């Protein structure tokens, strides 16, 4: 053993040093392996929760238990919202799990309107689970399929790192206005999922950026803290109040922090030497 370790360290160091190539960042590619594998483990955990929660939700829908289904809707979505950077890589599943009525020419009445929001429409806008059986079955099948595909996927590093910013872009452009869960108004749950997912990515790669740019890290952390602080004002039990309770002032605070995070986190890939 005494023979081996110094040799290993030396060989590793010289191998990495001479192979650093044209990376312009101070971060060596191999430094990203640890955080990447941690992220995959995080996503695997979230997926397990998502599968279990979706099963409970769709069972309630199929049993016609409207109150129970309503209670399970938003918690189930939190896990999905946290892993969106990876889930979105499978655009067919993303569409059938999470698309909105706007994406369909005939809106809510469009027979092709699927997934979480189709069920949301039935439960809240129509106060009925009638006809939602097949939609629920398809949602469960899609979530299972998503789990399988993600397990087999080698996560692309640039998509993971870029995912932190991408989550904030989504919230900034299409969610902060309350359009995502327009029937149930459970958007604040979704926000928490998005913020958690983005923050997780940032925390995993933070040590690699902190040395060179502690001011950047401080600014990003401060904005995440603002999001947490603002959203936590609306905590209710295990979840949140409806979006309608969000005051104009707080919505603007969230929007400001989210837009700034989108701007700052868009630097992350470059700082880590990724495309």
């Amino acid at each position, binding site marked *: 053993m005494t023979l081996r370790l110094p040799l290993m360290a030396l060989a590793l160091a010289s191998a990495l040093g001479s192979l650093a190539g044209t990376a312009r960042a101070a971060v060596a590619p191999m430094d990203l392996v640890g955080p990447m594998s941690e992220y995959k483990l995080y996503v695997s955990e979230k997926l397990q929760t998502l599968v279990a929660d979706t099963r409970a939700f769709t069972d309630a829908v199929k049993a016609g238990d409207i109150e129970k289904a309503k209670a399970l809707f938003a918690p189930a979505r939190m896990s999905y919202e946290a892993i969106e950077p990876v889930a979105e890589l499978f655009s067919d599943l993303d569409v059938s799990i999470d698309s909105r009525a706007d994406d369909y*020419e005939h809106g809510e009445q469009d027979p092709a309107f699927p997934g979480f929001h189709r069920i949301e429409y039935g439960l809240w806008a129509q106060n009925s689970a009638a006809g939602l059986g097949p939609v629920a079955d398809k949602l469960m099948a899609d979530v299972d399929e998503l789990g399988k595909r993600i397990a087999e996927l080698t996560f692309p590093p640039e998509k993971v790192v870029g995912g932190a*910013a991408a989550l904030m872009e989504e919230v*900034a452009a299409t969610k902060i*206005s309350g359009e995502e869960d327009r029937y149930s108004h459970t958007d604040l749950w979704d926000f928490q999922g998005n913020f958690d997912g983005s923050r997780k990515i940032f925390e995993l790669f933070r040590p690699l950026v902190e040395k060179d740019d502690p001011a950047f890290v401080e600014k990003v952390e401060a904005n995440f803290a603002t999001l947490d602080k603002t959203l936590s004002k609306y905590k209710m039990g295990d979840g949140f109040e409806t979006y309608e309770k969000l005051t104009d002032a707080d919505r603007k605070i969230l929007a400001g922090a989210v837009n700034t995070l989108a701007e700052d986190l*868009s630097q992350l*890939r470059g700082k880590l030497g990724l*495309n």
Partner: protein
Amino acid sequence: MRERDSSGLGATPPTATSRRRILIGLGAAGGALTGGLVTGKAAAAEIESVTNAPISDKTQERQPFYGVRQSGIVTPRPAAGMVASFDVLAKTPADLVRLFQTLTERIAFLTQGGEPPSLDPKLPPSDNGILGPMVTPDNLTITASVGASLFDERFGLKDHKPKRLVQMMSFPNDALEVSLCHGDLSLQFSSNTPDTNIHALRDIVKKLPDLLLLRWKQEGSVPVMAATPGKPPESARNFLGFRDGSANPSPADADLMERIVWVQPDGDEPGWATHGSYQAVRIIRNFVERWDRTPLQEQQAIIGRHKATGAPMQGGSEHDVPDYASDPEGKTTPLDAHIRLANPRTHGSQANLILRRPFNYSNGVTKSGHLDQGLLFIAYQSDLEKGFITVQKRLAGEPLEEYIKPIGGGFFFTLPGAADERDFLGRSLLEAAGIAQPAN
């Protein structure tokens, strides 16, 4: 009249007497006069005012209207454009004839310019007056096209529908808003200034209230450039900051235009459609904040060109043909780059060329506080399926989809031209359907 010196510049204000004379002479009420240039002969001298009309030397530019084919397709695209889509309210074939005849008269007048009739002031004026007492052409073209819905049961036109004209379908990345889609009739306005287009639209709307109802409209513009003598012209930029139109087929290539733009008499289209074209309009929102946060090299990889010069990824200049043959794995230009997907430059893809003539639009602010900006995409082709539809299908799944969202538009058929004063737009169609009598 109370004098107020609101110049605020600390300049010596004119004396009270002279100021009063100027105010009366101009008939103005309290207009602020800056600087000390004011004298009693003010009416004739240079009056500086922040609200003087900006001067243009292009207002007399004129595009022909009469011709075998309509203008506004191979006509060079000016700085301002608009597409307005209408529902046709006509109830009878005679109404339909009146619609097209009136439309033709108005377009002829507006594009050539002239003096609108002067009416008794007790009546509403005949012209909205935006351009002043004389209507100036300002390079205006107005191009009329008809939608698939016009060929329904209303006017007996069903059997005469152009073969490939369909209501615009939804593509995978679309989020179409029905209120921004389709229409019985589209009018494409393009001219040097937005006001010329607006003047023309208001004129047509005023003249045909019982026959046309506005459905949606989108205005747009393109950035102007200083002249670059001795250098090849550059394509105008879109709101992603990229040159848009680099590989557009050239109107100078007459054979190419015949093949890819104009419906020919020897094809399978109805005879009346000869000299017409298919028009694809798409209102495509751009997520500009997100785009502006994307690394430059990623922007270039997504589009497939260098941003500053418009050159293909292999280098050179904007008008160089991208070299894909020596890049089969997409290491220079990624295989899913926008321009490479749209036109992979194989032998077969020559059949799918389209003539693009887009404008950039900037509307309001979304509920999220983001900018509602994007591309008013307009393309002309002799075969809608081989043209726009094929190209759009190729683009499915492109990385650019993260940044764009088609929300409106429609498919239309651009009518053949009005040959002369006795002709009118749509006559060949209405004759074929037995609605209009052949002109003698």
